[in-house]
């Protein structure tokens, strides 16, 4: 069969292995005991905002057509004293009070007393004691202006509660997954398998770095990163068993829409041709939009609450919580059953008397349509943009949730912003008059889009935009499992990396810049103008590096130097070393500052060393910035996560 395995050069594969071993010195020792090629499984970990999933496949005896990743049932505490196996591990961490649980009620098959309560039990206990519940740790990882290694979660906890950092919470989820794997596969330690961890395509370099660091903290130094929408597409490719070439054609632009529990992630993947083979290139990713299924359930709960309050009934916080749960179930029933027009909602009393004090109301199809379909997926024009009012109050106290709930408006903005994403690909030709990038195919991911009504509406809106510009309608790529696709795709990617199947070309999802003061005479009262110096171009591939020998900085030994740091999802043409004098807010997003500290080793403190910058994309999938001395070629790492003390 004419697969694209020739795309992946064998040198590259061996290079991977070399890099992995060099990065993790302990690997050398392990290698001595168990040969490196003892790797038997490709393990994909979907480290989601609300759920984690682990999928794996045996690498020993597979061929392209028979690759079938399995989803591991993860043993976890569901309530004090009971352990159940579930396919998903809720990404929640509960900081229990010492008097809250009895001695032996929190033991797991692998630990008599785990350090942290994660999974179903955390979500259950936290639903009644929110001040001790850590949730959405992942969203905090890419929240600008927050030190992710500082104990800041739960944000609303009283001082007495010993808080944890978003980084530590992420580590705890990974540790649970690792321990669960270890207990189920004692013969195949996870640190010797090919591990792929997925991250949102919109994760900035610092958040990616933190994810890799968390993996390293639990001994998974060999883990590599993969963007979630790419993983979803890999899963679709894998599920089609080689048939995908019939469903995708040269010139296609696949729009991946991933609406999960807490976030919405958008990516564009172009299908091109090279030497007669189909080639996939991820050409654009969207912003990190904190908007997802949980917002929908909450919106429904508040609609019902308003209805009840109109009838003169006051609701307590726990009742709203219970209402949110029943709204989630009711919504699914209304979406899946077209004959039902209203679902009774019942909030039982908390006391032992069930009948007295039970609150009854109902959720109608009309309400679901109004709140979810019209509220989250309104029929908007492609020229509409998300509404963003001025932010008030303390932003760092909470997550920067999307202000406009209309996903279609976010989509319109994304497609318009990425109009030029395929300019450099000769196989894809956008009409002259196009006002946005025309996708030709759509792949859905995320539990929210299991609802047929929502999926249909999203397609309708997109196709109405396309029709308005005389473009053919986009078709829906079907067959993916919306809940588990990311983990399955990640496991498949481990297999693709062995040189089998088709690989999506990606590289960096943005171009990166540092801010430098321009050389101009100081004007009193004016802050000096800033220039943006491009240090990493768009689409820089894994395992490559770029140096800027012509841009020299004098750094003082022992003193930290900070740079302003920018990313652009649209400026594809900028080469390394390009300097921008002017840019619009839309073009460049400012990220957290980066910091270089030249160590004093072998040098005199206070000495000025001329350095230039060097950017590299590691095989793992993270961006690495270094300062290189012009004199003796000494190298210093530039840190991303310097969010503390900003």
């Amino acid at each position: 069969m004419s697969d694209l395995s020739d795309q992946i050069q064998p040198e590259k594969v061996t290079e991977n292995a070399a890099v992995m071993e060099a990065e993790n010195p302990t690997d050398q020792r392990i290698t001595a005991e168990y040969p490196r090629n003892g790797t038997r499984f490709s393990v994909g970990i979907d480290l989601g905002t609300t759920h984690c999933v682990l999928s794996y496949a045996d690498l020993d005896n597979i061929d392209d057509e028979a690759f079938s990743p399995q989803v591991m049932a993860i043993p976890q505490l569901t309530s004090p004293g009971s352990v159940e196996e579930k396919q998903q591990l809720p990404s929640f961490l509960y900081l229990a009070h010492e008097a809250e649980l009895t001695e032996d009620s929190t033991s797991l098959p692998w630990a008599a007393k785990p350090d942290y309560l994660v999974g179903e039990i955390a979500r259950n206990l936290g639903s009644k004691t929110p001040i001790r519940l850590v949730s959405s740790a992942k969203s905090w990882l890419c929240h600008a202006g927050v030190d992710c290694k500082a104990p800041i979660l739960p944000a609303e906890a009283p001082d007495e509660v010993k808080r944890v950092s978003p980084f530590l919470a992420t580590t705890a989820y990974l540790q649970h997954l690792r321990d669960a794997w270890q207990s189920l596969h004692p013969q195949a330690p996870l640190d010797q398998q090919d591990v792929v961890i997925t991250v949102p395509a919109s994760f900035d370099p610092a958040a990616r770095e933190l994810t890799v660091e968390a993996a390293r903290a639990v001994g998974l130094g060999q883990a590599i990163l993969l963007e979630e929408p790419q993983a979803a597409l890999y899963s679709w490719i894998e599920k089609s068993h080689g048939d995908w070439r019939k469903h995708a054609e040269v010139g296609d632009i696949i729009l991946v829409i991933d609406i999960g529990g807490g976030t919405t992630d958008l990516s564009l993947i172009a299908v091109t041709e090279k030497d007669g083979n189909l080639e996939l290139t991820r050409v654009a990713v969207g912003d990190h939009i904190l908007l997802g299924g949980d917002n929908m359930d909450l919106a429904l709960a508040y609609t019902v609450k308003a209805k009840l309050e109109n009838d003169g009934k006051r609701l307590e916080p726990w009742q709203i919580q219970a209402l949110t749960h029943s709204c989630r179930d009711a919504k699914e029933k209304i979406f899946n059953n077209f004959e039902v027009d209203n679902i009774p909602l019942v909030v039982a009393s908390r006391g032992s008397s069930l009948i007295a004090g039970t609150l009854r109301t109902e959720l109608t199809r009309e309400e679901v349509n109004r709140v979810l379909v019209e509220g989250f997926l309104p029929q908007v024009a492609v020229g509409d943009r998300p509404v963003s009012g001025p932010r008030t109050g303390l932003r760092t106290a909470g997550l920067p949730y999307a202000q406009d709930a209309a996903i279609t408006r976010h989509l319109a903005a994304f497609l318009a912003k990425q109009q030029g994403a395929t300019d450099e690909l000769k196989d894809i030709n956008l009409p002259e008059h196009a006002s946005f990038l025309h996708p030709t195919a759509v792949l859905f991911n995320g539990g929210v889009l299991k609802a047929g009504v929502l999926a249909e509406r999203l397609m309708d809106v997109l196709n109405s935009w396309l029709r308005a510009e005389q473009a053919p309608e986009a078709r829906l790529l079907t067959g993916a499992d919306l809940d588990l696709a990311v983990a399955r795709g990640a496991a498949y990617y481990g297999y693709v990396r062995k040189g089998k199947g088709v690989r999506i070309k990606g590289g960096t999802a943005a171009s990166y810049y540092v801010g430098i003061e321009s050389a101009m005479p100081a004007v009193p009262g004016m802050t000096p103008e800033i220039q943006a110096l491009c240090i990493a171009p768009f689409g820089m591939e894994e395992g490559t590096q770029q140096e800027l020998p012509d841009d020299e900085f004098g750094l003082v030994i022992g003193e930290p130097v900070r740079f302003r740091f920018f990313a652009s999802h649209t400026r594809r043409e900028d080469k390394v070393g390009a300097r921008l004098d002017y840019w619009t807010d839309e073009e460049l997003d400012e990220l957290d500052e980066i910091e270089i500290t030249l160590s004093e080793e072998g040098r005199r403190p206070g000495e000025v060393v001329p350095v230039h910058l060097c950017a590299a994309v590691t095989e793992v999938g993270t961006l690495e910035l270094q300062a290189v001395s012009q004199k003796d070629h000494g190298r210093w790492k530039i840190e991303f996560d310097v969010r503390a003390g900003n």
Partner: protein
Amino acid sequence: MNTYAIDLSLKPTTFDLWHVCLAGTVALLSLILIVLLLSVVISRIRCKKKSTIQQTAPTPEPVVKIVEKIVEVEKLVHAPAPEPVVLKEATPDAALQLLGLLQKEARFIDFIKEDIAAFSDADIGVAVRVVHEGCNKAINEHFTLAAVRNEQEGSKITLPQGFDAAAVRLTGNIVGAAPFTGTLVHKGWQVTGIRLPKLTAGHNAAIVAPAEVEL
């Protein structure tokens, strides 16, 4: 040279030590012989007619034993399966666990323990939604249920010879021999999979719902 002459008419007038020893040995040997022969005879008789011997040697202890044995037999008649011992070990935990699950998901105990006579059907109906939905969730999550017979209820089915009488119960006019033909009244249920939570060592399953105190 000494010669020994045998004179049978001669009677010894004195018994020396040797003669006493000789006589003693003879008496001992003949006693042993009698005992051995007696024991062989007794054991033979015992083997053949145990009961006869027991009757011939009626001691009070065996009678008590017989009474005990009868009591045991009566117990067995009441619970014929050999399993109860095993079930006694396993049942309470699993049953308590199921109660706990039903209470957690469906407020099952709350509902059963409530006096519903005081409430109207409408109020009870509202509560039943909670119970039904929760039970449905708990049962589906922890058990896989399948029908025993997949035919339509009310349709005629034929049971071949040697059908599983535990899975299919015959009722009504049971006469003749298999194959039996009859109407499927109830399709039956069987559990094909159980996924009960595992319990930690310190878990007290008897607490099916902990008391809740809000601070």
